[in-house]
């Protein structure tokens, strides 16, 4: 499977994100004491220094903050789908939390399923989930396709 899309390689702090993703839930780490959301996940809260954290469920709604359309040279599995899009989404529930992902026409659709000319900053999107090599990862679909 050397030519497949890359799977996430979680660290200790990020592992819960992927575990929740496996259940189709988009959750973001929050401080259990002061409540501040943080991303990427970290061992302690930069605001109050608490090591206690919880994972807060997000609605999955967001807006495209920016995007690129990569062309080769790329890793083989990505070159096969190029040009495709990679987007940054700011979450409606927490605009300062931004996730990198891909805008697709359906959860299992390829990374190039949305034509590049349809991409625009500010577009409303919704998180969906798909499996890559047995790992559930978020994808994004337009709220109004």
């Amino acid at each position: 499977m050397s030519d497949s899309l890359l799977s996430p390689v979680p660290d200790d702090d990020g592992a819960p994100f992927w575990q929740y993703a496996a259940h189709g839930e988009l959750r973001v780490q929050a401080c259990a004491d002061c409540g501040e959301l943080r991303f990427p996940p970290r061992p302690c809260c930069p605001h109050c220094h608490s090591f206690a954290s919880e994972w807060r469920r997000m609605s999955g709604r967001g807006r495209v903050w920016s995007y690129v359309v990569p062309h080769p040279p790329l890793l083989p599995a990505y070159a096969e789908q190029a040009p495709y899009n990679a987007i940054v989404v700011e979450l409606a529930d927490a605009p300062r939390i931004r996730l990198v992902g891909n805008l697709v026409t359906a959860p299992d659709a390829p990374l190039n399923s949305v034509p590049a000319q349809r991409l625009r900053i500010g577009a409303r999107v919704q998180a969906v989930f798909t499996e890559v090599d047995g790992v559930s990862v978020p994808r994004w679909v337009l709220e109004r396709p």
Partner: protein
Amino acid sequence: MPGIKDATAVVGIGQTPFAKHLPESEKALACRAILAALDDAGIAASEVDGLASYTMEETDEVEVAKAVGLGDLTFFSKVGYGGGGSCATVAHLAAAIAAGQATVGVAWRSRKRGSGPRPWKNTTVQLPTPAQWTRPFGLLRPADEIGMLARRYMHEYGATRDHLFNVALACRNRANQNPAAIMYERPLTREMYMTSRWISEPLCLFDNCLETDGALACVLVSAERARDCRTRPVYVHSAAQGLPAQHHGMVNYWNDDPLTGPAWTAARHLWKHADFTPEDVDVAQIYDAFTPLIPLSLEGYGFCARGEGAAFTEGGALEIGGRLPVNTGGGGLSEAYVHGFNLINEGVKQLRGTSTAQVPGAATCLVTAGEGVPTSALLLRS
């Protein structure tokens, strides 16, 4: 505290040829550049007691010191974050010499990025953070990561591809004056730029730096000793590193304002310790792995206000005779991409009056390291 202002000077610079492929090893190229810089300074290798380079430098101090016959080393330092560390190598030596921890310092970078592997192709050694949040989604290369910031910047401030072309063109025009530059005999036109292939939209081929084999080095001593050297001293007037609060490297999408990069942090320290201001800078060497880094850096270092960096490039402002001539050797875009070290040596050449695209009477030069990663910068003066 006395600080480092004008306490040290660059008295020697050296470089190898630049090419897509050089036959020698990175180690051999490093030795050649260092020996050339020492020869330029007229200082014996045995007098060197300080070294500084990048954490990405493959040849370590032990190998360099043994190969070129350095003396007993009492200070050696390596700076991280790729091209963000370029100016910091000189800054660390300046601090060490000013503090008495070394007397003759050498900074260097040797890299076979032209014929060697592209770092992003390595999928076996991937740090889980932050790669788990970006790479699975096909954000694979630095061009993709910076392209994301560039698109947002263009959206927020009305910057266009013509602005990015202005940057590419200024660098190419200077390279066309520099026989050592990879692009010496290769002029660039707007037509070529606008019809070139995409790398990661909105960035095309000419928005990306070269892939080069080559090495450079410079020699630093105290200002007092510099007066006895055979070259015209180029003083380190001010120096800074910058890692802003909550910054996250090249994928800096996760703080309040991703477009306020490390340049802003470095700049505050740099100007605070300087006797002059951005208006007094005669020429600048601004890190240009990608064209959008120049407008972002122009804003960060205070040459214009936030959002005005793109417009600043209009009307030939970056060309010789413009408001701020930049990258007068051709930069990473058109001279050589050696993690920004050629920008340091070009700054020295300008203040010696020996650049191939000399700015008449240049007495002050800003040199910057990579924006978008923890960075560094130098203010040089003659």
